[in-house]
């Protein structure tokens, strides 16, 4: 049985089509990434899959339970961590945990044991009796994740779980996600951090303007755009016009400055390496390092969503 089965899902808000006939499935125990630019339909998809809102047409089921007709049963096996840290500021961390568990009908002994474990995992035990008012953004995020896990879900929806967090919270949350995957929990992850999806996910779907542009394993997706390879190079000193000069080299499709390095996009790395070495000699620059890179998941994302790199950033071209 699939953990999630989505078939021809469409959602319209008046004249706006937020989701346009999307279909996909997520196997039990799989870590599935759902990537897309802002407004692509990611949150709408999660809201439909969790039964918060209904589809205009199409069906979605969770472990075989139709989310519209059998909402309560479908929700019983899932945990939800929304994009916003939706904790109750006036309650203590412990009271928040208990409330989340009671909504899922977790028995008293079990919920107390689970809450103790989770607060320890998320390094919140020493603040468990404090009002959440005084918590940092990272602590609230960790508590939100702990609340999403208190019912020991078979499937967890994580909407931007590490967005804008401090390093400590980020590491804790990533470790927990890795542990969940090890325990066979199905993870449905939306994130803007494409590298995070690349590292964590078995498969990713890239959604754009309400349509699924691609679904596959990250490495397979990368292979589809071998023409987008790149060379990463660093010189012994920075010259202001270097980036502009590199963009003019034969075979270079695009160039970016990334910290003390330059990244040159090309379909033919060997031609570009020769050109770069000639350029360095002509300018009296010494090459410190040079690496050939295959396409990244971010490259796939940019290609499929119609975004464009300009001046080190990524911008919409439509």
């Amino acid at each position, binding site marked *: 049985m699939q953990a999630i089965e989505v078939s021809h899902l469409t959602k319209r808000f008046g004249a706006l089509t937020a989701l346009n006939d999307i279909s996909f499935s997520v196997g039990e125990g799989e870590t599935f990434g759902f990537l897309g630019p802002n407004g692509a339909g990611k949150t709408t998809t999660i809201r439909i899959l969790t039964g*918060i809102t209904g589809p205009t047409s199409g069906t979605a089921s969770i472990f075989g339970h139709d989310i519209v007709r059998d909402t309560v049963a479908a929700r019983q096996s899932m945990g939800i961590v929304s994009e916003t840290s939706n904790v109750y500021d006036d309650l203590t961390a412990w009271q928040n945990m208990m409330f989340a568990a*009671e*909504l899922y009908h977790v028995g008293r002994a079990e919920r107390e044991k689970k809450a103790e474990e989770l607060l320890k995992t998320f390094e919140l035990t020493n603040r468990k009796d404090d009002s959440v008012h005084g918590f940092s953004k990272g602590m609230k995020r960790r508590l939100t994740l702990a609340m999403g896990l208190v019912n020991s879900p078979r499937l967890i929806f994580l909407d931007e779980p590490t967005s804008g967090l401090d390093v400590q919270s980020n590491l804790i949350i990533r470790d927990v996600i890795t542990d969940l995957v090890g325990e066979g929990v199905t993870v449905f992850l939306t994130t803007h951090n494409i590298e995070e999806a690349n590292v964590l996910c078995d498969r990713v779907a890239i959604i754009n303007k309400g349509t699924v542009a691609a679904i596959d394993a990250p490495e397979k997706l990368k292979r589809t755009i071998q023409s987008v390879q790149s060379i990463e190079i660093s010189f012994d000193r920075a010259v202001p016009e270097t980036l502009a000069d590199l963009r003019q080299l034969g075979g270079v499709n695009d160039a970016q400055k990334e910290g003390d390095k330059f990244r040159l996009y090309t379909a033919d790395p060997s031609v570009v390496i020769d050109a770069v070495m000639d350029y360095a000699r002509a300018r009296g620059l010494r090459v410190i390092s040079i690496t050939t890179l295959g396409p990244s998941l971010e490259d796939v994302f940019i290609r499929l969503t119609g975004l464009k790199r300009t001046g080190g950033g990524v911008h919409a071209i439509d």
Partner: protein
Amino acid sequence: MPSTEREAWQARLSREIAAAWAIARKDMRIYYLKPNIIVSGLLFPLFMFLAFAIGKNAPPGSLIPGLVAITLLFSASSIEPVSIPIERRVKTFDRLLAAPISFHALVFGESLSGFLYSLGIACLPLAIGVLFFGTPVKFALVLAIAMALTAFCCATLGTLFAAYPTENVGEVMSLLNTVRLPLIFISGVFIPLSEMPVIGRQIALFSPLTYGNDMIVYACNGTSQFSPLLDAAMLVVFTLIFQFVADRLYKKFNQ
């Protein structure tokens, strides 16, 4: 696992009641002492009552049943119109919407907190009336039932209005007050039904407060316009209507 349909239904009911009680307890912890709830649920009906009672040629003790009725109305219907828009704004309401419970349990749980709050608050004027102004209580059990039914009915009314999809408390309160304020004038609280014009008496039939006030007056004095049984039945009918409409509205607005 439940082996029969009946056991499955009982298990489901037990889960729904437990979740509703959890929601009510959460509201009690968070909202009961919020200043805008105290103002709207306690001070507003008190001052409203004083404004009409002062100068009236009647012993203060006889006015207490009316004060109890409007206190029940205002306090019961004040929790959800404050809590739900706030929870929509901070997205904690999504937590309730995504929980494995029905809209019935959600609405019931929300109403339960308003119900318990108003019962507690309304005991204050009742106790003051009985202890200091000689307000009679002829039928204590009827009074308890009247207060409970009125409180739950008014709490469900508050939950219904809180379905309006806004994150702004003021918008819900304004909408609610356009109904709540007229209710106190057409329900026989300040002007007895017998002294109202015919059209007023006909309109009063559509107000749940008419039946709540009538039953409370009966419990205190032993006199009433309607039979207490009819009053109780009408309060139950109004509660069911409000619950049904609230279920539908929460479902509709979340689509």
